[in-house]
């Protein structure tokens, strides 16, 4: 187990390195100079040269990259071109807002998906299975940015019982989950976010549990006269490592892929930050946000992988 953990960590290192190259290199796909949007048309050559020097754009690209990685590994992602605040602080704050939504969605979607998926697996081909399958197909196919708008139309426009967007009456500064007046702002984004993982995990749970049920040892358990609850527990326990892997990935996607939902609900998370950085061509911010999101995705995958190995004694890796 420990040997495997060390090996898995070593494997993750080159991936992390590649991720830094992509996050850094993406900027150079862009046409034009990174400082162009920032400069007024009447800027003189010496102004441009000065700004380039300040932001380090005057060095050759490989040197820029090495400096960037060296500073990023110390937690210094530079300052935002737009508002001159440290990138890491901005991204950190935004990440905490994104986590409110994604953790909320996890709390709703994961147990529900596990329960419904198991129910479906125990009733293959019958009504619960059909309903679960239908729900998961809809969950996988629905554009969640549209679902968000539909929920806003229903609950904010027509019924008027929930706020349509934003993060509370006083903005994000004093967001307090224990206060209903602020918590209600998170309800629609959380529900919208929860649907996709709900569909996917339900589908995987159904498949995994159904697979376990087809084994002989399940028949033995039944023949022994165990109660239905015990049998369900056995089935879930055996299917869990597989389901866990899917859950981990989904959590990663929720954290990293929040851009559309945050745009709809004006939720000031990482996705929101990212789209703002793209629109204003704020390069340090863009690089920093991308890197933090991709790295957290790598980290989540790594954690899930190790957890899965620890949970499943059949997996002997090393």
């Amino acid at each position, binding site marked *: 187990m420990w040997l495997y953990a060390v090996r898995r960590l070593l494997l993750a290192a*080159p*991936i*992390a390195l*590649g*991720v830094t*190259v*992509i996050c850094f290199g*993406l*900027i150079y*796909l*862009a*046409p034009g100079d990174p400082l162009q949007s920032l400069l007024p048309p009447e800027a003189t050559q010496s102004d441009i040269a000065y700004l380039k020097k300040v932001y380090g754009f005057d060095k050759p690209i490989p040197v820029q990259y090495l400096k960037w990685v060296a500073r990023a590994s110390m937690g210094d992602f530079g300052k935002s071109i737009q508002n001159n605040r440290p990138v890491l602080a901005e991204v950190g704050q935004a990440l905490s807002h994104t986590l409110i939504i994604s953790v909320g969605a996890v709390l709703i979607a994961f147990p529900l998906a596990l329960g419904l998926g198991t129910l479906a697996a125990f009733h293959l081909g019958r009504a619960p299975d059909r309903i679960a399958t239908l729900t*998961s*197909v*809809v969950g*996988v*196919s*629905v*554009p969640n*940015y*549209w679902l968000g*708008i*539909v929920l*806003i*139309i229903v609950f904010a*426009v*027509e019924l008027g019982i929930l706020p349509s967007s934003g993060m509370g009456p006083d903005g994000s500064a004093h967001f307090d989950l224990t206060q209903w007046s602020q918590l209600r702002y998170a309800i629609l984004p959380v529900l919208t976010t929860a649907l*996709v993982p709900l*569909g*996917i995990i339900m*589908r*995987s749970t*159904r*498949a*995994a549990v159904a*697979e376990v049920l087809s084994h002989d040892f399940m028949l033995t358990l039944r023949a022994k006269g165990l109660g239905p609850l015990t049998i369900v527990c056995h089935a879930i326990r055996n299917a869990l490592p*597989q*389901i866990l*892997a899917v859950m981990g*990935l*989904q959590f990663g*996607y*929720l954290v*990293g*892929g929040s*851009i*559309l939902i945050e*745009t*709809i609900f004006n939720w000031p998370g990482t996705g929101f930050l*990212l*789209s703002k950085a*793209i*629109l204003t061509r704020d390069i340090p911010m*863009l690089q920093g946000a*991308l890197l933090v*999101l*991709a790295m957290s*995705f*790598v980290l989540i*995958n790594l954690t899930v992988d190790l957890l899965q190995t620890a949970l499943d004694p059949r997996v002997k890796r090393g």
Partner: protein
Amino acid sequence: MAQATFTYTDLAELEAPAIVAPRQGYWWSVQRRLRGDYITLFFLAIILLLVGVAIFAPLIAPFDPNKTSMIYRMKPIGFRQFWLGTDELGRDMLSRLIYGARLSLMMGLVPVVLATAIGGFFGVVAGFFGGWANTIIMRLTDIFYAFPSVLLAVAISGTMGGGIANGLLALTLVFIPPLCRVTEAATTQLRSRDFVEAARASGASGLSIIFFHMLRNILGPVLIYASSLISVSILLASGLSFLGLGVEPPTADWGLMLSTLRQSIYVQPLVCALPGAAIFIASLSFNLVSDGLRQAMDIKA
């Protein structure tokens, strides 16, 4: 085995579809199974309908999709000759939805086709030659797997400045790694099979083994997987347009229409929800048909 499911937030959890050797009368049995699968047939009909509507848009659309009118702005569904109402500039919604099918379907299909060709090529190379070629190609795809697909698509098209071409490029880049992985897995599985060994022993060259013996065996699982990505691609492409990174106004595109009509949900909520419903129907149809084909072709996912 977990059944692989794919959304645009989720590409990495795929498993390589297992290879089933085509038997005699394989396509006949596929066809027979499909004929009894009414759900798949129904949604296949919807796809054909959408494609037909997209192709013949100028003949079908009752109005010019770009003709604005100050008088008829934001009219409800069923207002006079505007069957589905009008948008914020007084343009006929039905005509815009019909024309929008063109771009939305194209953005769904083109990246998948391109990525299948490119990713498939690298996958076959990696799987067939193994060794260093495999290590380099597969480790590179690993790096792209470190990004959630939405994030990667937005980052690429965003830094390149939006637009249809950049959107297509971004989506193609997003789909190459998963298709490469699936093809690689299928090829590696096949490489050690006896008939490949036999071909090699009888002196067939690497290229002719790939073309005459492996390709037709790999094609089934890879195409099925690719077909499941079409719905993902439609959702992602509309998402890019929704963020202002794909199609530019005033072109009719479902994602873009959804984004501009968002401002008017307090005026005409039903009309504003229409473009999203169109995206949903298209993506649902492609998903269900892909599932149906997978079952009919007996490819375990």
